[in-house]
């Protein structure tokens, strides 16, 4: 008991007895997580303000007579006339490796019931993005484990690649697969003891999602053993809009810590459509002038300043961003979609029709692009999958025309046949990312025509047989592909021999 008293006395002694100057104001009106405050004459834009009862706010509207603040935390006890004080600080969140494996709210407080987080540092939620001098171009691959993406729309470390599509087309699944794949690569890399290996840590920011969906995502990550390399920032739909607004910035701050400390991180914003809606709500309550679709004028800046924080830094690490946008009826030309498309370095467009046809991941090859990723793609993938995107796009065009006529020449038939096989080959179940070396082996087999004798309906089956053949019997060859990352003549010969061996055993 005496030690407890000593602790309190120590704390009292630490408190300064000097006079403290505070700038104060009073709540004039409060509604929907936004407070209008009289006073606060010294408050600065984006400054954190203290409300009674421990709630904090951020000053967003500095007007002549009043200050508009969004409130983070419990607002049920606040009332008109309550005193509000400035803090002189920007909103900060805990950062560091202590957060890995944890689920936190938008202020970095744990919400997973696993106890307090022992974070040593905090980073401001709002930060200026790195400038051009400190940036380095994207040249290192970030493997998603999804064959269609890694071969046709490659992503590099430090890139911003948008994932866009209607609801229920597998947008979140792609990002979860990517996170799981990073964890798998991390485990292999860390076990190898390679001093040059750079693990990728992941941050998943859930904005405006149902709690049940967030739990499902956490369970999927936990089941795949990926949670230990992942931080979950949860701002569920039931949170007030201010929390939804701040969540992606909090996640970005956590990711920046890894980047600034020479590590690589991946951040998923799921999704920015709901983020824009939360910001619109706040802006309308703050009586900011509204523009197109009632969004405020600075909705572009809302996302550009967030996504610009993803970068690859000279002499430091990188932060790769995978923002998600949900479209309505496949309309990519909506306001927020076009904004984010123009900010990012490419997009992966998922189509409902493809999804319903059973082509999963339902990636639309024609509308998907990676503007910088090809520089990051490893040579082995380029060698086996360099022409795939063109071939598949051509196939889709031919397939559309083939519907009108029954008489097709042999060349067109062959192209259609090959296209169908590629489509089948790219089908991949959820939460089972493929290692890049295995992708190279499968694509090599496809390029060399090993799937041609196989009936189209049985291509998926044949591909899984080939995968298990390689993983169980050709592990040294896979390791060689992984380490060399390029197919030289020797490796090509080995792959050819292995495929022949598989062919004889499969057809037999």
């Amino acid at each position: 008991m005496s030690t407890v008293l000593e602790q309190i006395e120590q704390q009292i002694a630490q408190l300064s007895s000097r006079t403290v100057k505070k700038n104060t104001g009073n709540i004039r009106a409060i509604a929907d997580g936004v407070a209008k405050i009289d006073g606060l004459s010294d408050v600065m834009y984006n400054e954190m303000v203290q409300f009674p009862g421990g709630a904090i706010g951020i000053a967003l509207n500095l007007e002549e007579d009043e200050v508009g603040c969004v409130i983070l935390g419990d607002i049920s006890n606040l009332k008109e006339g309550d005193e509000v004080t400035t803090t002189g600080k920007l909103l900060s969140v805990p950062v560091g490796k202590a957060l890995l494996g944890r689920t936190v709210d938008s202020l970095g407080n744990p919400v997973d019931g696993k106890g307090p987080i022992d974070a040593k540092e905090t980073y401001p939620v709002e930060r200026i993005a790195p400038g051009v001098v400190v940036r380095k171009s994207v040249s290192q691959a970030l493997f998603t484990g999804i064959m269609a993406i890694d071969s046709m729309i490659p992503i590099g470390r430090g890139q911003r690649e948008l994932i866009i599509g209607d609801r229920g087309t597998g947008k979140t699944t792609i990002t979860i697969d990517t996170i799981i794949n990073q964890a798998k690569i991390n485990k292999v890399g860390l076990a190898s003891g390679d001093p040059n290996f750079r693990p990728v840590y992941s941050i998943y920011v859930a904005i405006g999602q149902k709690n049940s969906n967030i739990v499902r995502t956490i369970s999927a990550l936990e089941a795949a053993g990926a949670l230990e390399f992942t931080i979950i920032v949860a701002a569920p739909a039931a949170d007030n809009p201010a929390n939804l607004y701040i969540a992606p910035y909090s996640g970005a701050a956590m990711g920046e810590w890894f980047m600034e400390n020479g590590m690589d991180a991946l951040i998923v914003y799921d999704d920015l459509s709901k983020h824009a809606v939360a910001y619109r709500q706040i802006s309308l309550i703050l009586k900011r002038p509204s523009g197109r679709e009632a969004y405020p004028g600075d909705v572009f800046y809302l996302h550009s300043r967030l996504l610009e924080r993803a970068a690859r830094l000279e002499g430091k690490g990188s932060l790769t961003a995978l923002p998600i946008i949900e479209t309505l009826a496949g309309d990519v030309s909506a306001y927020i979609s076009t904004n984010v498309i123009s900010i990012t370095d490419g997009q992966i467009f998922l189509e409902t029709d493809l999804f319903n046809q059973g082509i999963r991941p339902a990636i639309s090859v024609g509308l998907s692009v990676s503007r910088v990723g090809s520089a990051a793609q490893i040579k082995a993938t380029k060698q086996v999958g360099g022409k795939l995107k063109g071939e598949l796009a051509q196939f889709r065009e031919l397939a559309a025309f083939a519907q009108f006529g029954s008489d097709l020449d042999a060349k067109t038939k062959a192209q259609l046949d090959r296209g169908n096989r590629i489509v089948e080959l790219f089908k991949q179940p959820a939460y089972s990312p493929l290692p890049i070396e295995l992708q190279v082996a499968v694509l090599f087999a496809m390029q060399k025509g090993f799937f041609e004798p196989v009936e189209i309906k049985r291509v998926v089956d044949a591909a899984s047989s080939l995968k298990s053949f390689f993983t169980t019997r050709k592990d040294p060859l896979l390791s060689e592909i992984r380490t060399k990352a390029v197919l030289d003549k020797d490796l090509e010969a080995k792959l050819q021999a292995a495929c022949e061996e598989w062919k004889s055993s499969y057809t037999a």
Partner: protein
Amino acid sequence: MAANAKTAQLLARQLFKMSFADGAVSAERVGGVLAYIEKHRPASPMVVLKAYSRLIAAELARGEAVVEHAGAVNDAMLAAIAAAMSRRYGRKVAARPKANAALLAGLRVRVGDDVYESSIASQLAALALSI
């Protein structure tokens, strides 16, 4: 409605600017403004008057140091506080005592939005927040 409120705010601000004499709010001028509003009723007199009242109250608070105290304060102490605040803000600030037992011990001086506090209550509150 929003446009009306904006116009009322603007009018209140204009009337506020007219309420000064020699750099300070003048009772005579405020009386004149009130008489003007009575005579030429604006579209929403209540909103105008409330906004005007808020501006005047904020201005008056800037010229007054409300000294809240838990123990006794004498005139010399009040004069010293008034002099210190006048120096700090570069304008005349008068001190007004106000007893507040909730402070437990010490002083809290409020000049406009600024609060200078050295009281046991505030230190305990800071301690409670830090635990």
